[in-house]
């Protein structure tokens, strides 16, 4: 349990990496790194596909990078309608990437492929925990 607190609305409550949400509460956005072979993962994983180890540790993701791509959603699935329009994108943090929403203060016309961005944790009013891509 614990993962039901992740995101605007979570679709799965149980995962071995639910500590990710606790780390968000501490203000940290972390990926996982294999203690055996050093492979780094985001989103974090409990198991290493590179060497099959289950011995994983956490590492703090780089905080800045560039926006690789994005889209503005004008329609949304159930439970997200009130947020429209909202922007989602992929940030390249120097070799490791992250998918998230863009911060609400970025207007669709201001988002640009290649723009400098930063990553920060986000707490919604209802207590849900997430992270977002903000202007650098």
């Amino acid at each position, binding site marked *: 349990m614990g*993962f039901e607190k*992740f*995101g*605007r*609305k*979570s*679709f*799965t409550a149980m*995962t071995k990496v639910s500590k990710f949400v606790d780390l968000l509460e501490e203000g940290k956005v972390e990926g996982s790194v294999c203690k055996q072979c050093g492979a780094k993962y*985001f*989103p974090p994983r409990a198991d290493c596909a590179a060497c099959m180890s289950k011995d994983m540790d956490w590492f703090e993701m780089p905080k800045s990078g560039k926006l*690789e*791509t*994005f*889209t*503005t*959603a*004008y*329609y*949304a*699935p*159930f*439970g*997200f309608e009130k*947020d429209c329009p*909202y922007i*989602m*994108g*992929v940030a390249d943090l120097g070799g*490791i*990437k*992250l*998918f*998230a*929403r863009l911060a609400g203060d970025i207007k*669709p016309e201001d988002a*640009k*492929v*290649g723009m400098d961005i930063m990553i920060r944790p986000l707490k919604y009013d209802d207590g849900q925990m*997430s992270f977002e891509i903000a202007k650098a």
Partner: protein
Amino acid sequence: MAKDVAVIGVGQTSFVRGYEGSIRELAFEAFREATQDAGITQKDIAASIFCSAPEYDKQRSPAGVLAEYLGLIPQPTFYIETVCSSSSSGLKVAYSMIKAGLHDVVAVVGFQKMSEITSAESQERMGRGADIQWEAPFGTMMPAYYALYAQAYMAKNGLTHDDLRDVRIKSGTYGQTNERAVYRKGVKASDFDPSNPDARMAGAVAWPLRVGDACANADGASCVILANAEKAKAFSKKPVWVLGIGAASEAVNMAARPDFAKGLSVGYGAAAEAYKMAGITAKDVKVAEVHDCFTIAEIMAYEGLGFAPMGDGKQLIREKATYKEGRIPVNVDGGLLSKGHPIGATGGSQIRTIVLQLRDEAGPMQVPGSPEIGLVHNVGGVGLYGNVTIFGR
């Protein structure tokens, strides 16, 4: 080019909204047409493979249920799923079984009655084909994923909204001649013009993609019957041979995708493998069906398949090279953008189009010059699965 396994029969229902029947009756229509096309009966079919995306199916374990309705028992039946490319994956499994000598004649039936569930349910369930642990919590949906590719691709490669619109116009041109398509109206530039109050296709869905950039849900079924060389020669006057098969898969999560400006990696991965097996290059392909669930997907496919250099797919639509009279005709049956996209039936419908083209039986859609080699490119999810299949006379 080994001629070991051939398509001996193809069938397809009309793709429609709200089919007035059950999935059994839907699948029966396509199967009946394919058996009549092949000139065989159920007794000649050694095994069957059913293909669909289970999120739309109320019926669990549909393969057994449909095999019984189609008269395909007691022969063995199997179920294959790779979302939108399910029936192309089914073809690969059928090919493998025939090559292995397990079965001599195999029917691959793709079906989807998307109207089994409401369109709101359908939108949500379609999203479950993406990463529900790490991406759905942000409010993702299928058009948004393709829009991520479109945005990066347009920024880097100079592709414009007019180019995307022109893909849809091409699709509309041919959709009008396909009596099995769900959308049979022509498409004009003014349909995309936001200053035109009647513009049906201009509204933003997931920017930069608009209403007209997306294909429609539909109900439909398809059937492809494959046979080994001995049976193919015995049954069929015009066997169409499977010359090459390639397939690839990719990380579900967008954070693990290599380069959005280069399109879907499964497209070029599967193509390279299929060309190698067939012993041909892109230049040898005379007609192609590509997975155009969104306009951007067709442009990316041009490049993945080697019809245009990387980043230059726009030139093909600007020069009308992918029209029927062009250098490499693509989706001259209207593509998914016009036909509609009944998930499990889609690949079989694309295969049917290419088989009819190679038999010179495509009617008003026929590419001139009796094409000898045709290609099918069928993608599942947002490049989660990719299948490329090459056929020849």
